[in-house]
């Protein structure tokens, strides 16, 4: 899931951009030593493949009407190795940002870390660890499955953390975290199944492609499928019961104890005076006098005059901007009508 600009503060965005840039620089340097120039076209085309593969939807098990698609990070890491896969996935994320505007320019650093660098390296590491030695098909199954689930969960885990660090989170951190992890548990399960199915297909049809990376035979048997679904059902059930017990507390906490909870200061936004504005309204102290707390709550009317002017200023700002845009649009229109005459 793409991080959005709006969930980040500028320092966090700059920090993650710097980390992602440094990481990517390192990966590129490393890859430059390993990857021959005849692999460059392959990497580029596989990046395009990731996009195309995301068009291929399929029915999700147990949820009629919804469909899923592959993310591809772990599949690429298994086929290409982690460095090349990291570069391919990074380029995919950059194109998603620049051409398709998925995730903003400032969130690019976060997205690179969450969706390209962490999943490929972590996924590859897990897959290699589990399938070390001479594994049977069960261990390969387990390895790829674990790699997909944990790699995607790790990426998903980072989203609320980055948003929390930015202090933009209005949704309580725990709720956001649980939602992200829950959704991505499902995404990871589907990713694992489809990655395994594709690996199995490749091994059947073009064994040369996966020769070095798939030590045993991959088969997606009914038994394995059922076992996986059973394990996931248990995980989801346990997770749900944990959340169910924790939820009311979390809600109460976020409403009742917010002002004196240091953890919750960011939720009310960074400007401290806004916290004050919530408690005792003072139009002139507030950073946004155009929106004022309902005066009846405190039983005293704030100075009506300053409030009204503030309301009118913001009105003037919006209307003025709209007028400016209209003027720009009209000018451009008139100019473009004239252009053929001048030419």
């Amino acid at each position, binding site marked *: 899931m793409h991080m*959005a*600009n709006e969930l*980040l503060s500028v320092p966090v*965005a700059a920090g993650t951009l710097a980390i992602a840039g440094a990481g*990517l620089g390192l990966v590129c340097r490393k890859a430059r030593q390993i990857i021959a120039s005849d692999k*460059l*076209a*392959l990497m*580029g*085309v*596989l*990046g395009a*493949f990731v*996009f*195309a593969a995301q*068009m291929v939807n399929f*029915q999700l*098990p*147990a949820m009629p009407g919804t469909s899923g698609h592959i993310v591809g990070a772990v599949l690429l890491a298994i086929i290409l190795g982690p460095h090349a896969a990291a570069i391919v996935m*990074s380029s995919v994320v950059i*194109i998603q940002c*620049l*051409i398709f*505007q998925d995730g*903003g*320019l400032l969130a690019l650093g976060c997205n690179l870390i969450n969706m390209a660098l962490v999943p490929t390296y972590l996924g590859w590491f897990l897959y290699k660890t589990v399938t070390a030695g001479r594994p049977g098909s069960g261990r390969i199954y387990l390895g790829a499955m674990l790699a997909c689930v944990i790699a995607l969960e790790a990426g998903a885990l980072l989203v609320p953390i980055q948003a929390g660090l930015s202090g933009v989170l209005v949704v*309580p951190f725990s709720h956001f975290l649980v939602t992200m992890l829950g959704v991505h548990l499902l995404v990871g399960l589907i990713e694992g199944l*489809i990655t395994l*199915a*594709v690996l199995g*297909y*490749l091994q059947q*049809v073009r064994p040369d*492609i996966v020769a070095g990376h798939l030590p045993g035979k991959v088969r*997606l048997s009914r038994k394995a*499928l059922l076992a996986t679904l059973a394990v996931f059902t248990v995980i989801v059930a346990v997770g749900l019961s944990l959340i169910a017990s924790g939820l009311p507390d979390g809600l109460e906490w976020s*409403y009742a104890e917010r002002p004196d909870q240091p953890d919750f200061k960011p*939720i009310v936004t*960074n400007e401290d005076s806004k916290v004050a504005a*919530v408690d005792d309204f003072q139009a002139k102290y507030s*950073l*946004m*006098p*155009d*929106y*004022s*707390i*309902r005066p009846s709550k405190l039983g005293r009317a704030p100075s009506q005059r300053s409030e009204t002017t*503030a*309301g009118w*200023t913001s009105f*003037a*700002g919006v*209307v*003025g901007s709209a007028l400016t*845009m209209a003027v*720009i*649009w009209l000018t*451009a229109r008139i100019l*473009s009508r004239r252009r053929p005459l001048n030419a």
Partner: protein
Amino acid sequence: MHHAYIDKFAYQDSAIHRLDGRIKFLVVLVFTAVVISLPRTSPAILACYAVGPFAVLVWAGIPLGFAVKHILVISPFVLVLALSCPLYDKTPVTVLFGPVTWRTSLGWMRCFTILGKFVVTMLALIALVSTTRFNDLLAGLQKLALPRLLVIQLGFLYRYIFLLIDRAHHLLRAKAGRKLRNLGVKTELRLAAAMLGSLLIRSIDSAGRVNIAMQARGFDGNWRTISKLQIRPADLLFAAVAACFLLALHFLIRPVLR
């Protein structure tokens, strides 16, 4: 397929299109950072900031309907997060907006601000992408110290992406023509795997042919372009205007709108 035509306007010609990609990229980056760092509960000022990307889009001759439609396509994730704000922040506020006054909650203000920032920053990004050819943008980014390997990778990716998306559509159409009902989890999964696998094999094969063709033409891992990047007076003028716009909003409008 809407994605295939995302940057179709980048190949038009206008004063904005002719500007240097680096300058445009940096301006959009700074603009985004400034908009994101605006206070989180006052949507009014965002309208003023929207004037900038709006002007660029209009002057570059990009249809506004295209930008709006595209913003709608990419909005779901942000929309969900923005709409969850009113659920969690119910501090009542009274909004005075010119002649109208209404009572609402701080969460709604925050929701509108998030959506407003999203729209404004995305307008800026769309303005950048649909006025700059991707190759020029890449050349500019390389000048801005993007690693060369990544530039090559992005160049290849951009070159083949629409080709492979087309191919995926052929596969999907073939499937739709043959598959008439839901086939159950395992068969569906196997079907998807076969489609993805054959797409992957075809990609790898065509990459091999691309590689042979490029090596026959002397490709040695270096990306050579004939585009000469030059900062011209027009670019400096654009940067100056953008800087004036941001500074004026920051020092003149923002204190008033507070």
